[in-house]
């Protein structure tokens, strides 16, 4: 069952720069960061060094609670890149967070065929061989009617 044991990440590992390192370091502590601007109050994702809404530098980290809903998704049957060879059929999607942003991610489910727009999902982390934790979202068992 997904969620009872550590999820192993076999895909590409993110490259980082100084600007994005805090995001990936937080992942290693089990925290997914979006950002909120102290000047305009808006949230943003992906992580970056300034507010894309008002161009202020006054942004602060905001750890998401972890709940989300599938905004859209695609079950990918054909990906010929060697980097994804071990994935087989997988679901990539956009998850809408109550924190006010949509996040591109991977969605894990015991029955991927039952994923729909609106399906509740929960933040989880997979562990790459390097030790880096990669955020993704998992369909909660029993969440699909």
């Amino acid at each position, binding site marked *: 069952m997904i969620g009872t044991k550590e999820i192993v990440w076999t*895909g*590409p*590992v*993110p*490259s*980082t*720069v100084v*600007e*994005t390192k805090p995001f*990936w370091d937080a992942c290693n502590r089990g925290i997914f960061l*979006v950002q909120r601007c102290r000047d305009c109050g*808006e*949230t*943003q*994702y*992906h*992580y*970056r060094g300034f507010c*894309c*809404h008002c161009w202020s530098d006054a942004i602060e980290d905001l750890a998401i609670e972890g709940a989300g809903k599938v*905004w*859209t*998704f*695609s*079950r*990918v*049957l*054909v*990906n*010929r*890149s*060697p*980097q*994804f060879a071990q*994935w087989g059929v*997988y679901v*990539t*999607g*956009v998850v809408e967070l109550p924190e*006010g*942003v*949509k*996040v*591109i*991610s*991977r969605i894990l489910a015991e029955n991927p065929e039952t994923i729909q*727009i609106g399906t509740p999902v929960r933040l989880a982390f997979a562990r790459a061989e390097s030790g880096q934790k*990669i955020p*993704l979202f998992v369909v909660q068992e029993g969440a699909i009617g």
Partner: protein
Amino acid sequence: MANIRLGETAAIVGAYEHPTRFAQEKSEWQLLAEASRGAIADAGLSPSHIDALFVAATAPEGGQLGICTSTMAADYLNLKPKFIDETDVGGASLGYYVNRAVLGIHAGIFKCALIAYGATTRSRRVNVGTVSYNQLTGTEMVPIPDAFEQIYGTTVIAFMGMLTQRYMHDTGLTSEQLAHVATTMREHAARNPDAMRRERITVDDVLSSPIIATPLHKLDCCVVSDGAGAIVVAHPDLFAECAKPPVWIRGFGEALMTHGGGKTDWATESREMVARACGDAYAMSGRRPADIHTAMIYDAFTFNVVVDLEGAGFCDVGEGGSFAAAGEMKLDGGSLPVNPDGGGLASNHPGRRGIFMFIEAVRQLRGEASGRQVPDAKIAMCTATGAAFLARRGSAAHILEI
């Protein structure tokens, strides 16, 4: 408000689509040159007339024309243009070049622009839609934004699948309606001797073709061809020297969409972006959707056609699918024949199809589209959306008249 005089600035005076769809024995440079020669000959001009050059990169689709594209193409062609550009908005780039050519001619910088494209995507066996973006472009996954996106397996078709899925949810569009787009394009391609896929298909054929990324089937996706095409855009001073009547660029527009820091509604914004580009083209030309005799719609996927039909105002929001299913896009009996050449779904799509839409529009307006001529076509529209990685996309719209 658009400057109405831009619509009296320039015209397409030459157009040529290379007949090849598989050119294993040629380089993409050679195809580009042959298409350029064809367009200049069609115009009745010579290479010495060309004083501006616009060439699309092919490297993002696995080709070899990468950086400094126009400069490298000018070197191969041995041209010395006083103006070059290689703005990159994926397959819509070619439409952006038309806009820049009109602006440059309007500003008095140059008088005769060559817009050219050539690619050997098929003979290089590039899996355009089914590999990760970084493999396609031969680049590393960069920290911003790839590390936040592409590590999750977002291929071109996976992205389009996500977009289509949401659009279906929002508007009631169905896979069966999308299949009608594919069958219509094959029906048209059957009348185009150069088209890559000319055999007829049924809605069931589309729906039973393998799923690549839900909800998109193999037959919802364009062909992957080798190909080349070019057009010549000229100032009226050159018309007297030209072999054929000018096809005026009466109106144009372009628009962008982005991820908006995670706020953008990809589905709605994809349509509204097309509407913004088309709105400017209508305003500049003084035309309305009802004035258009035939439309060239960039059909990398069946879904794109529905979005553009709705965005351009050819039907209401949510009715693009039923418009297609009712046969309104067909050469035979449709109210708005779309892509009489068979489009990217059936005729020609090496990666950046934009140029071929202008060429087919010119053939239609000149009455040269034998076997698939839209009767009395005098006003054509071209709409194209291209992508620069996921939902960072751009649309171009044009109204052409003879």
